[in-house]
């Protein structure tokens, strides 16, 4: 298989402009004859749905929550980047592009990243027009803050609820299209399979989560906007429902899965409290602007923070990285936290935590300013831990947060399957091996508002709505039967363990063996264990209830079954990538100072995996990455 990224020729500054001109257009009068399915109503899906419906396409959206507004994007706290240079601090499209490529540790496609930076400014304009109440200065102008890993202030925010406000903007735009009859939103509807026929995506199979009914949906193009797969680790900062089923089912039907091992660990989460823990809570990275991270200098120092004198504290990030200090990128901050905890200097229960201390900032700025900036985050922390961060430092620890990997897409955001587009976190495109803070919201909305609406036209213009398959075509009826059979099988096992117990076991194995630090040994062990867990799952899981009813255990069982397969690919990818880069840290590959060591000679590529069967090895395809503009260098934040 030849991977064609379809990156336009010419200087990077003109590629998108040229491409927009070169792409085919669908005649305005014909647009309403084309039907597009969009799975997912997060930032990427809702913005795409609203935009495509406005253009005149017939749009059919699906989400598993009870409302489009509840997609996981709602939980994003910190902000969204854009190269507006409102702060006059030297920001530019080129700098945002440069920062993103460098932050991604040179494992992203330059042309895509440049386009993202180019579009970023229009996103803010669009969101403001839709009524997103971004933070303002007293002058009435938009406010910015700086966000982990950059030295310019380019992040726009709405208190600590930026994702909520951006999503409500896109959701309201989509709601308007629903009212006009141009879009439909099917809630409590889960895509359980992709239908492919003649090498083209033809539609999807959907389970109605209230009645259990399985139905076939046919369209001229299918868009997956189904978010990331961090929940393969069980404990992550993602919402409980986030899952990989849509992209994994598409992968099984032929879509290549790229860079699955590029997962991001967020340095500032509330540490695990106990066995019952169902998810982890992120404390926005913006806290690192004013909080100082430290641990005691002495091992096993159990004194309360207040009793540890200044001289006996190690502000290790400030010490090791004087230029960036507490604002080093996420992977660097996370790894250093693990290192000090592994060295016995961690704080709190189990020694799995480091302090994030606001005492100095409160002294300098006053409690009011800190409350204004982070009030809601402090409250959330207090509510969960019953500790008051105005009086004592927060305890934080890294947790899985974001998936840079995802389905492989070309410059048009189309997978290798004709007619299957993938947007938002579900694709692998723009963040390389590490995503910078506030860039996921930017990418989701760039994809949905300003990229897909153009590129999908190029796909649709090549097909005729008359060739759309009828939902009773054998390709659909076979897929329906398969989905029915899978449900029957899961319900019929009637074993002795719950779905959750398998998910926890899988997640713990992944976190221990394929988390912040990975080695040949740990990965080989995981690759031996996962098939055993999977086998036991299919022999011993207990799924109560029936297929024709609201059955949350059955929903979860299907998702966990897919996670089991994805976990294996994740570890295989991590084992194959014999280098460290971004969020992927192989202990065998580090510099003398313990920093990630890339191997550009052998691994400057996207690893795109082809599915060959649940029990057979996948095939690796490589898309070489060329860096014409940003010269790969060892990242340094010293």
């Amino acid at each position, binding site marked *: 298989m030849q991977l064609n990224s379809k990156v336009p020729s010419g200087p990077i500054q003109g590629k998108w402009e040229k491409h927009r001109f070169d792409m085919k257009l669908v005649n305005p009068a014909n647009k309403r004859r084309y039907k597009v399915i969009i799975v997912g109503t997060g930032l990427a899906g809702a*913005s795409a749905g*609203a935009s495509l419906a*406005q253009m005149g396409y017939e749009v059919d959206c699906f989400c598993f*929550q*009870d*409302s489009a*507004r*509840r997609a*996981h994007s*709602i939980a994003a706290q910190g902000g969204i980047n854009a190269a*507006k240079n409102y702060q006059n601090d030297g920001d530019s499209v080129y700098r945002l592009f440069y920062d993103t490529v460098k932050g991604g540790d040179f494992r992203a496609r330059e042309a895509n990243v440049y386009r993202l930076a180019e579009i970023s400014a*229009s996103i*803010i*304009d*669009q969101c*403001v*027009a*839709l*009524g997103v*109440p*971004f*933070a*303002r*200065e*007293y002058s*009435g*102008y938009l406010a910015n803050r700086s966000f982990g890993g950059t030295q310019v202030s380019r992040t726009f925010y*709405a208190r600590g*609820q930026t994702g*909520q*406000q951006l999503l409500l903007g896109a959701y*309201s*735009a989509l*709601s308007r299209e629903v009212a*006009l009859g*141009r879009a439909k939103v099917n*809630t409590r509807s889960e895509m359980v399979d992709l239908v492919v026929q003649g090498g083209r995506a033809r539609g999807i199979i959907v389970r109605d989560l*209230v009645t259990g009914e399985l139905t076939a949906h046919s369209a001229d193009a299918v868009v997956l906007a189904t978010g990331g797969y961090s929940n393969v680790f069980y404990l992550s900062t993602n*919402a*409980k*429902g986030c899952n990989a089923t849509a992209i994994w089912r598409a992968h099984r039907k032929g879509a290549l899965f790229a860079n699955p091992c590029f997962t991001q660990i967020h340095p500032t989460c509330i540490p695990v409290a*106990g066995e*019952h*823990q*169902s*998810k982890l*809570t992120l404390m926005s990275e913006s806290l690192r602007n004013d909080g100082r991270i430290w641990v005691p200098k002495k091992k096993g120092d159990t004194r309360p923070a207040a009793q540890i004198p200044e001289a006996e504290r190690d502000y290790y990030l400030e010490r090791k990285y004087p230029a960036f200090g507490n604002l080093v990128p996420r992977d660097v901050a996370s790894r250093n936290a693990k290192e000090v905890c592994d060295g016995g200097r961690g704080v709190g229960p189990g020694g799995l935590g480091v302090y994030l201390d606001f005492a100095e900032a409160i002294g300098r700025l006053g409690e009011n300013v800190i409350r204004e900036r982070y009030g809601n985050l402090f409250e*959330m922390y207090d*509510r*969960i*831990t*019953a500790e008051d961060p105005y009086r004592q430092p927060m305890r934080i620890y890294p947790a899985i947060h974001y998936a840079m990997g995802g389905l492989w897409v070309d410059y048009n955001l189309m997978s290798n399957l004709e007619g299957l587009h993938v947007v938002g976190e579900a694709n692998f495109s723009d963040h390389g091996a590490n995503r910078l803070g506030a860039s996921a919201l930017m990418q989701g909305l760039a994809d949905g508002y*300003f990229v897909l*609406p153009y590129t999908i036209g190029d796909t649709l213009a090549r097909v005729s709505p008359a060739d759309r398959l009828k939902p009773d075509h054998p390709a659909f009826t076979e897929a329906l039967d398969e989905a029915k059979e899978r449900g029957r099988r899961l319900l019929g096992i009637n074993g*002795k363990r*719950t779905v*959750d117990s398998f998910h926890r076991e899988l997640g713990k194995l992944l976190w221990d063996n394929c988390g912040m630090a990975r080695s040949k040994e740990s990965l080989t062990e995981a690759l031996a264990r996962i098939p055993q867990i999977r086998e036991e799952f299919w022999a011993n899981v207990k799924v*109560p209830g029936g297929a024709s*009813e*609201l059955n949350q255990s059955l929903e979860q069982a299907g998702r966990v079954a897919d996670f089991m397969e994805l976990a294996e690919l994740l570890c295989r990818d991590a084992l194959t990538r014999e280098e460290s880069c971004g969020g992927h840290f192989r202990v065998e590959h580090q510099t003398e100072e313990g920093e990630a060591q890339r191997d550009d000679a052998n691994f400057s590529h996207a690893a795109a995996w082809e599915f060959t069967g649940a029990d057979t090895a996948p095939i690796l395809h490589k898309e070489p990455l060329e860096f014409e503009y940003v010269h790969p260098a060892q990242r340094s934040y010293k």
Partner: protein
Amino acid sequence: MKLTLRIWRQDGPRDKGKFVAYPVDDVAEDMSFLEMLDVLNERLTLKGERPVAFDSDCREGICGACGFMVSGVAHGPQKLTTACQLFMRHFKDGETVVVEPFRARALPVLKDLIIDRSALDAIVQAGGFISARTGSAPEANAMLIAKPVADRSMDAAACIGCGACIAACPNASAMLFTAAKVSHLGLLPQGQPERRQRALRMVAKMNELGFGGCSNHGECEAACPKGISIDFIARLNRDYLSGSLFEKPEPLSSV
């Protein structure tokens, strides 16, 4: 600690439903209410019983998916807190806790604690938006918005659409939910052109869907996990009144 949970069990929309008591003997203080239900569900599953169905997703108090009545109070006894952020340290050993779904004619029960809130989406579809076609937006800083105005708009925009205000209201009115959206958009300069129509359309939809009227009980504000102020209802009433006086309800147009 030991608790007795009296939980509403209802197989489906047409089932009558009833309370069933479940003793839970090992509730930890740092569990969230939902984590406690998770633990109960694991046990029920292993015993071959049907687990309790309830909605949740973010578990951070922002998506609005969770929510039920805890001993008669929407989202439970902690002020400004969703059920997913309610921690068990606020309960006492030996307590009996009654758990039942939000009840309102317009939000029917689907199963156990899960309700159908699609009526809230329908209210937003009726007018809870600013019509700004993708690509048509002017430069963001071309329009200045005074900080207090933006902040006030954000106060209203913080609504998570959980439905607690409706469950708490003796009339099962959706006024606070609707008022929050009308105020969020109506406070902003971008929201002015459609301001009156928005109020007319959303209120009409609300009435059509079977939500009750507002008689100023104020229970909604007390139950709101996001502290949305009842003052916004006064704003909605003003917009609705001026809409009724000066404009006729017009159908939504695509251009």
